[in-house]
């Protein structure tokens, strides 16, 4: 195994709880919800009418009019977040060879809005009126391609597509790339823009979305709570700059946290339902702990996938118990989806960012909406308010339809330790 270590040196985010890292972190810690009544399209046509929307996002202004016109919203969000993260890292073409910078960005679907608009055009006016930009705007690897053009990153470049685990897979693959010496720097994370008729309608048909809090959006995403009724669909992008430790130290740059280990597995059980007892998730967690050189007893905090669906929250609770053993009774577990909703292919990036900031700042963000534990949900979910604890080791879980499980282990960075 490689002895290269990987650290976070840049963060960027556009999310329902803020369009900058500091704003998103402050809102997460304050337990402030970004969930609102759907405004991008007519909410009345859906059984679930509450969503996490990115507010005040004007792509023509943040990017430029041409980039705004030629990219789907999911790519616009990724580009905007990547620019923030790249600026935050302090890297530039002068400080690193572009060929040593890779980009891996995940998305569950890619350009769904583009697909829907162009499909309508084709149905109304025939296939000859499909825009030449349809394919490049729709494909789920274009965020990675566009970000590379934007920051001139000429190293390994691809997209990961594993539903709600997409961005965690992107980060896992990026860690591998740095460990294997394929790049010194990886720009990674995820992006999703699913507030469209087909996405919301499709998840409504699956009965996966919250339908019981349409009048109280801020309470709708309630992970591990007895009154939870489904997840809250959300949009956004979170981009993380990963860097080989010695490279980062040589630059004297601010290090947010170390990405110490990764675990990946598959349930091989059912297309959407988790395997009984969360055994697939548990295996990914055990793998990540081992890869990071940790012991279950070292884990202070788990940023759970915690979607607020009936099945996820029970099975993930069981997985945490299976993976951590006795430590499960001591560990703090929170789902920040209580505040930002479920950003699907971007959610792993968002949660790994918040986990890294929790380690750096010594504050565990809460499961703000959690009031009464649901049946089978018997861990310390950090209900209501954040906790000031100087945590050292943390895990972030992401689980996707298809039975994909990713666990990322992070460690507080304490200089030359």
């Amino acid at each position, binding site marked *: 195994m490689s002895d290269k270590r990987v650290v976070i040196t840049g963060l960027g985010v556009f999310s329902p709880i803020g369009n900058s890292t500091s704003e998103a972190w402050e809102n997460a810690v304050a337990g402030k919800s970004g969930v609102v009544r759907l405004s991008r399209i007519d909410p009345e046509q859906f059984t679930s009418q509450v969503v996490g929307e990115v507010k005040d996002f004007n792509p023509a202004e943040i990017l*430029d*009019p*041409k980039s705004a*016109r030629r990219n789907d919203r999911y790519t616009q969000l990724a580009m905007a977040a990547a620019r923030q993260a790249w600026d935050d890292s302090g890297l530039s073409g002068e400080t690193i060879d572009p060929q040593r910078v890779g980009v891996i960005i995940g998305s569950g679907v890619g350009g769904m809005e583009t697909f829907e608009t162009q499909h309508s055009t084709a149905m109304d006016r025939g296939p000859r*009126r499909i*825009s*030449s*930009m349809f394919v*490049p705007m729709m494909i789920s690897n274009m965020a990675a391609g566009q970000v590379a053009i934007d920051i001139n990153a000429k190293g390994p470049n691809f997209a990961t597509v594993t539903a709600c685990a997409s961005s965690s897979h992107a980060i896992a693959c990026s860690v591998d790339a740095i460990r294997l010496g394929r790049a010194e720097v990886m720009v990674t994370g995820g992006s999703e823009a699913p507030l469209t008729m087909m996405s919301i309608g499709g998840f409504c048909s699956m009965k996966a979305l919250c339908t019981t809090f349409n009048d109280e959006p801020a309470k709708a995403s309630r992970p591990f709570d007895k009154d939870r009724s489904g997840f809250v669909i959300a949009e956004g992008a979170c981009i993380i700059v990963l860097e080989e430790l010695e490279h980062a130290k040589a630059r004297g740059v601010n290090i947010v946290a170390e990405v110490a280990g990764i675990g990946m597995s598959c349930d091989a059980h059912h297309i959407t339902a988790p395997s009984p007892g969360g055994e697939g998730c548990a295996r990914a967690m055990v793998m990540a702990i081992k890869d990071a050189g940790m012991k279950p007893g070292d884990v202070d905090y788990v940023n759970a996938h915690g979607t607020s669906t009936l099945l996820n929250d029970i099975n993930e609770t069981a997985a945490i118990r299976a993976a951590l053993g006795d430590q499960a009774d001591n560990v703090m577990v929170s789902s920040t989806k209580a505040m930002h909703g479920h950003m699907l292919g971007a959610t792993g990036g968002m949660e790994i960012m918040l986990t890294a900031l929790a380690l750096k700042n010594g504050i565990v963000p809460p499961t703000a909406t959690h009031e009464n534990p649901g049946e089978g949900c018997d861990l310390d979910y950090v209900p209501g308010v954040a906790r000031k604890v100087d945590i050292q080791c943390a895990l972030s879980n992401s689980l996707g339809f298809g039975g994909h499980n990713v666990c990322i282990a992070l460690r507080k960075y304490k200089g030359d330790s």
Partner: protein
Amino acid sequence: MSLENRIAEIIVSRLNVKPEEVTDSANLKDDLGADSLDMVDLMMDLEDTFNLKISDEEGNNLQTVGSVVVFLKTKGIEA
């Protein structure tokens, strides 16, 4: 509105350029930044606006703003 102005409006909107850049001699690709994908959609915009068909061969010959004006006039479009 004159034919020239209508064409300029379409080009400004499709290529995100400033109106003053859209001169008679401006080359759509070299001066106004259109790539091959923009050109396809620009031809569609012209077809829709002026209700005509532009063949691939005809489209390939439209290099400058002025050539678009001349082409549409030869198709009998005045304004």
